[in-house]
């Protein structure tokens, strides 16, 4: 399983959740800025993805992945991402263009960066980490 194999189904699910034509959903589309997603849509999307791919996506998993090996205190201070945090974020969200990362970015602004590819990566990682017994089920 890889991003290319996940993308077709991801496109269908995102189009359904956001009530869009599938043609409007590209791998590079940002869910909030380009596709108009609201917070309820993320909740709906996560639930639909869990159902479709038979995985569990813990709350805040994307943010946790973005933090990488950094502690919460190393990643952000008073709601603002630290320089080290920004490096970790850019490394994780390697599919997001450099100029989307603003200086002094707030923690609450991270979801603005998420693209369709970000969620494809999440699914691939979740399926890879899934215990073998569950994969065979």
């Amino acid at each position, binding site marked *: 399983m890889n991003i290319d194999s996940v993308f077709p189904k991801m496109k269908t699910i995102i189009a359904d959740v956001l009530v869009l034509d599938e043609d409007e959903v590209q791998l590079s589309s940002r869910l909030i800025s380009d596709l108009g997603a609201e917070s*309820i849509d993320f909740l709906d999307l996560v639930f639909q993805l869990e159902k479709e791919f038979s995985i569990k996506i813990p709350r805040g998993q994307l943010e946790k992945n973005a933090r990488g090996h950094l502690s919460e205190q190393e990643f952000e201070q008073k709601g603002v991402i630290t320089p080290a945090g920004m490096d970790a974020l850019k490394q994780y969200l390697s599919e997001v263009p450099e100029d989307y990362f603003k200086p002094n970015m707030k923690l609450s602004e991270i979801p603005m960066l998420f693209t369709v590819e970000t969620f494809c990566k999440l699914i691939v990682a979740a399926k890879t980490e899934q215990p073998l017994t569950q994969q065979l089920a």
Partner: protein
Amino acid sequence: MHFLLVDRIVQLSSSAGSVRGIKHITPDDVYIYADSQARMCFMPCLIGETLGQMTAWAAMAQCDFQKRPVAGVVSCATLHHSAYVGDTLALESWIDDLDEESVRYHGEVYVGERLIFRLEGALGPMLPMDDFIDRSTVLRQFDQINRPGEWPVTTVTQQQPITMAHRSVPLHFDAITECEPGVRLCAVKRITRSAPYFPDHFPHKPVLPLTVLLECKMNLAQAFLNRAGLSSVYRVRELQRIKMSDFVQPGDELHTQLTLKKQSEHALVLHFRSTVANRRVCTLDMVLDASEEGV
């Protein structure tokens, strides 16, 4: 006037994640209308509201009333039959998943042995209680309705309700703004704090109940049908993919566009999209079947 619809919780099981309760429909209810056969009918979307409120009590009890759920997404709400003055709604729901951020559940409503309403795939965010209402008030309200009792509920059938003039709360859009008969209909509803459901929904943050908006949309669907000149009479069977994206508050001007999404010999699908200041607030599909009876 209030918007707390559950009369009594009779069984609450945290371990099983299930809750059962009742609501009597009586001449004291205000969310009543006369149907095409002059029978006093409980507004169908408020059957769903009652079920949702009961489930909310169960979810809140499980988190010590620190958080409360609000309307989010519903996969499908099926209206099998109407409920009338004299009926008792037997409500049953199952919480499929509950954590700090959201609750997911499904449920059913019966009158006697007859299934009248089913809800599938309901998903709602859990938000801080104090944003909406004092925790002490909610605890008091819960104590008033959480009175364990017998299940299933036995109800008296073959009743003959006393007929009387009835004042009801109309749930409609204010005006039609655009109309393409059989294709599209647009309407506007201006939200006022004077509406009777706001004091309970909620004291700290009055927001339009999703089910009130759904009831308005069902009436808008009837207006669309009246103008469409279709040969069949249609009845609402299901509401699908309901999503409430944002709160609608007093002072807002709510615009809704209804479009005919699909039409076959025996069914119609209408798509609704509501906005406030061009911001999406609610979308859904409404499935109607050709019927002998009207909506």
